[in-house]
């Protein structure tokens, strides 16, 4: 107990401070525990033999030469693990009759995409393992390759899985009329004055996280510890237990520092299963680390949808109905949430608009390609793109200004909370305010004026302006909603607070970061709740042995669900500490006030005790309230009642060189409403990163397969990820409408930029060249596509599937696992 000194001003709250991230020094320098940095005594190394063909029966696998190679300890094929490998799980059966072909980690009978694992080499060094890969001799009996979704669901298609009767995995329909959330869609269209229909292509993308995947397994008796570069250690542990039969309590999964994921590490991967099975079989520690080429070819991909969108309206621009039919490419197998991705988008196609009628119909389709699954935004970017593109098309059809059409139909600020035609309750916001601010940030009027001048003078460089007035649903998720969508788990999050004797605080979070800045943001939250210095808080995460309960990080859920649990646990600590304080200060609990980390007796200046001192008193427990356990630690589980709905207005100004087709972003302004901002620097960073990825979808990235099912874009030479040098300055701003659904008032920001930006960019390019007769350009807007759309019409068409000749034509039909002609050339051509 200390005498109350003359109080200086209470320190400024931590929440709202633009703190630099405390984890960054170690993450940026790489002096940390990346999984591949792990070295265990006696550790063996794995290399995976992968299929060079897209679809074939495996007729024989000869591993003898590989097994005899120097340093090789063992070689395993799918047959060796057939009894124990189970199937990679799909936790989201979106319909009761969804077809799941089963997904062995190591192929046994057949291969269904290039890059599928067929054997694994175990060796004393990574180099020895890699050298032996080419010695495994696999005979393949080729089957027809299914690549095109529209062909795959047409009459008499070739089959991706010959034991199934079709290429359709599921058909998921949401009809607002039937659900009672809207009117009859067919009637709305029958009675409409104007109907606009478009086909949009969401190209296949590769998450391309910075740190390649890696896993290390250490057996210890009948226990196994796995380190994995995963977003989801908790889910991974549960699933590994279910698949491999290793009891859950004998498995510990640790996600050490993880270098990015973007959904790409929201997975239970074949390689993680294989690593565990090999360690279990041999009783030795083993490590697997992928190469970049393996990563691009075999880690799950994202997007890949064909969208048929119809919008109905009257001549005045009042929207009447929306119909969406989607073909969603699952790739060759269903992974953890593959079918759930389009379903997460199902409810967001109406966007911010008051559609009276809405119907969503999605077919999940198998093709002989790498499976798809979550990728930043998962379903919502696709939805946002479709609605924001079709609104522009409708505006053109009606001869209306695209912003005026939006304004006429969007939900007004005074209408929140608003229940949409998809049955979602949008929580808060003001679309008009965000739009006004974004227009000012952009300098809209001058740019429109310049656009007019360029058009009139027939300038070879034309200018366009594109909008995206988006919202999205995130903060996954209310458990009961996930239940209603047949998802295999809940959406809560867990946190606990441990008060250490010296007054320092350990926060354990179930939401495992992989670069988002949890350690900093959680410390800010706890510092405010407990009144302790920011530096006195340490955040622990990512280890199922430390953080026993958790559902990890995806769907912009960490702050709004995980952070809410942290706040709630902190408040429980304060409530317990209050009892101790009352005891020690010999006062009634109700007479105590808690301020800046100290309890004092209201109206009786002089004595107080800080929560950090109470932590020591609790450790000693010499003098504790009667009947109270000597602990002020607490934990909490937060299950949100609703999603959060960030929104914003993104405006892109785009220059198009009509002679070459080259597009260049002239200016990009966006105003996002992400509710309460805990750390403006982190929010800004998330927005920038999201914009980079959303713009990358619009302009750069595309996974391309050739006619045989080889991934042509198998290196970063041909899969173009933009760097800072390729992106414009971003003019960002915020409006703040707190989310009512969590105690922080925050809305998720992790995916917003990625969801919002893509249609703004495409709309801008189209706005620049629409007067030249262009009505659509397929993503990514390569210069060639833009040029073709301008000079020969259409949407720019397919690209050639040959890789560029850099590195002497190195593509992925490379070498992993087979002696191809290329690998036997012995020269660099």
């Amino acid at each position, binding site marked *: 107990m200390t005498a109350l000194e003359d109080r200086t001003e209470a320190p400024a709250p931590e929440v709202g401070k633009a703190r630099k991230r405390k984890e960054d020094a170690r993450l940026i320098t790489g002096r940390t525990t990346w999984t591949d940095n792990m070295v265990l005594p006696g550790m063996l190394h794995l290399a995976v033999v992968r299929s060079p063909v897209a679809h074939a029966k495996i007729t024989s696998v000869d591993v003898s030469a590989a097994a005899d190679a120097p340093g090789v300890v063992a070689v395993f094929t799918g047959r060796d693990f057939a009894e124990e490998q189970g199937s990679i799980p799909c936790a989201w059966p979106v319909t009761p009759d969804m077809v799941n072909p089963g997904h062995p980690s190591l192929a046994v009978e057949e291969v269904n995409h290039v890059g599928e694992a067929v054997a694994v080499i175990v060796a004393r060094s990574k180099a020895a393992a*890699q050298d032996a890969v080419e010695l495994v001799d696999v005979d393949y009996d080729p089957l027809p390759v299914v690549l095109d979704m529209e062909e795959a669901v047409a009459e008499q298609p070739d089959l991706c899985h010959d034991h199934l009767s079709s290429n359709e995995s599921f058909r998921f329909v949401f009809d607002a009329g039937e659900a009672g959330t809207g009117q009859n869609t067919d009637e709305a269209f029958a009675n409409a004055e104007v109907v606009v229909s478009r086909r949009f292509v969401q190209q296949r993308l590769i998450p391309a996280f910075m740190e390649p995947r890696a896993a290390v397994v250490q057996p210890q008796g009948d226990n196994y510890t796995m380190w994995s570069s995963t977003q989801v250690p908790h889910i991974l542990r549960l699933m590994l237990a279910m698949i491999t039969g290793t009891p859950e309590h004998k498995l510990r999964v640790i996600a050490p520092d993880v270098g990015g994921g973007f959904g790409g590490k929201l997975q239970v991967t074949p390689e993680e299963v294989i690593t565990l099975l090999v360690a279990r079989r041999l009783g030795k520690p083993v490590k697997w680390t992928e190469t970049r080429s393996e990563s691009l070819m075999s880690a799950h991909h994202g997007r890949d949808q064909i969208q048929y969108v119809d919008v109905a309206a009257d001549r005045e621009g009042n929207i009447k109905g929306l119909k969406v039919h989607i073909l969603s490419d699952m790739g060759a197998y269903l992974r953890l949430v593959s079918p759930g991705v389009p379903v997460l988008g199902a409810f967001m196609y109406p966007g911010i608009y008051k559609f009276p009628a809405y119907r969503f119909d999605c077919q999940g389709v198998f093709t002989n390609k790498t499976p798809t699954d979550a990728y930043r935004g998962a379903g919502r970017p696709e939805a946002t793109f479709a609605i924001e593109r079709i609104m522009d098309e409708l505006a053109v059809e009606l001869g209306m200004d695209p912003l005026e059409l939006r304004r006429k139909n969007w939900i007004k600020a005074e209408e929140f909370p608003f229940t949409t035609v998809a049955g979602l309750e949008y929580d808060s916001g003001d679309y008009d305010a965000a739009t006004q601010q974004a227009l000012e940030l952009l300098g809209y009027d001058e740019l429109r004026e310049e656009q007019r001048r360029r058009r009139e003078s027939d300038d070879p460089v034309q200018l366009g302006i594109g909008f995206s007035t988006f919202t999205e649903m995130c903060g996954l998720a209310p458990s009961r909603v996930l239940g209603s969508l047949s998802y295999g788990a809940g959406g809560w999050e867990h946190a606990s607070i441990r008060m250490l004797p010296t007054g320092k605080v350990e926060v354990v979070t179930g939401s495992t970061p992989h670069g988002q800045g949890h350690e900093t943001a959680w410390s800010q939250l706890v510092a405010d709740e407990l009144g302790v210095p920011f530096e006195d808080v340490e955040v622990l995460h990512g280890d199922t042995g430390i953080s026993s309960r958790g559902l990890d990080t995806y769907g912009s859920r960490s702050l709004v669900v995980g952070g809410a649990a942290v706040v709630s646990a902190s408040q429980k600590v304060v409530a317990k500490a209050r009892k101790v304080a009352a005891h020690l200060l010999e006062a009634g609990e109700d007479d105590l006030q808690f301020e800046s980390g100290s309890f004092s007796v209201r109206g009786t200046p002089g004595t107080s005790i800080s929560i950090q001192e109470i932590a020591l008193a609790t450790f000693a427990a010499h003098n504790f309230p009667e009947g109270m356990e000597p602990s002020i630690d607490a934990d909490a589980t937060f299950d949100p009642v609703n999603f959060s709905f960030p929104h914003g207005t993104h405006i892109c100004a785009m220059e198009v060189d009509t002679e070459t087709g080259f597009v260049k972003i002239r200016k990009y302004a966006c105003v996002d409403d992400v509710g309460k901002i805990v750390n403006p620097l982190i929010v800004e960073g998330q927005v920038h990163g999201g914009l980079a990825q959303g713009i990358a979808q619009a302009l750069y990235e595309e996974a391309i397969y050739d006619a045989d099912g080889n991934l042509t874009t198998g290196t970063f030479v041909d899969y173009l990820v*933009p*760097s800072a040098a*390729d992106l414009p300055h971003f003019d960002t701003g915020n409006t703040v409408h707190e989310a009512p659904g969590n105690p922080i008032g925050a809305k998720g920001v992790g995916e917003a930029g990625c969801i919002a930006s893509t249609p703004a960019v495409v709309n801008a390019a189209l706005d620049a060249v629409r007067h030249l007769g262009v009505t659509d350009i397929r993503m990514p807007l390569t210069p060639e596509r833009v040029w073709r759309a301008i000079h020969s019409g259409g949407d720019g068409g397919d690209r*050639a599937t040959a890789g*560029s*000749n850099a590195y002497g034509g190195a593509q992925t039909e490379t070498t992993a696992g087979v002696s191809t002609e290329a690998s036997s*050339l012995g020269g660099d051509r």
Partner: protein
Amino acid sequence: MIPAPFEYARPTTVDEALQAIAAGGEDVKVLAGGQSLIPVMRLRLAAPETVVDLGRVAELRGVREDGDALVIGAMTTHSDVLADPLIQQHAPLIAQATETVADRQVRHRGTFGGALVHADPAGDLPAVALALDAEFVIAGPEGRRTVPARDFFVDYLTTAVGEGELLVEVRVPKLDGQWGMRYEKFNRVAQAWSIVAVAAAVRRENGHIAEARVGLTNMGPTPLRAGAVEAALSGAEATPEAIAAAAAHAAEGTEPSSDLNAQADYRQHLATVLTRRAVTAAAGL
């Protein structure tokens, strides 16, 4: 990925290097900056028996003057080329093109000679060397020989440098006085190879173009000279119209490839646009 095993030699003189190559067995690769060789070895598209590393051969580095020519050592890195005042003064086209090569890290390792011997059709320096009528000094067991640029680039990734030989240096005639130069590169992201590029050097005299040299990048398996453009420009008025008319010939005789960056007809179109732009800039218009 990890390259297949190989023997490694690190000579310090050209003579030692030639001996190491001769002694290296069937398949010997010379290592310069490694920015093209190491990736193909890691992808196991190349698996040489011996790698002879030129990194310690000091005599292969640097830029010097020799009368009317600049002499650029094969092992001069891209970044040293960029920083060199002689190049800025006498062959700014090389500096302009080198600046567009890859990123800073690659430019610090990759070399002028390596880029030319590698002869990637999408590489930026071959067309520049061709446009500047550079000469290539090649050393072999029988001594040294000099090959003009037009004979140096033989085919896709293939040059006049034979087995057992080394590129030692490149002689670039100084183009002083009335010459203007421009390298016009077209690619999608900053660090990428050229989809198409055009190297132009133009000498003006009395409002006319007295002489023009135009090199094309990635318009065929080897770099090309746009001969028809050069002929049309020779003696033409230095006006936008005359240049545009000449540039319209840029695709003549080219056989570009079709890949995911561009199909052949689009590359041919780009060649005309970029030629017009490059020549216009080089002519100071």
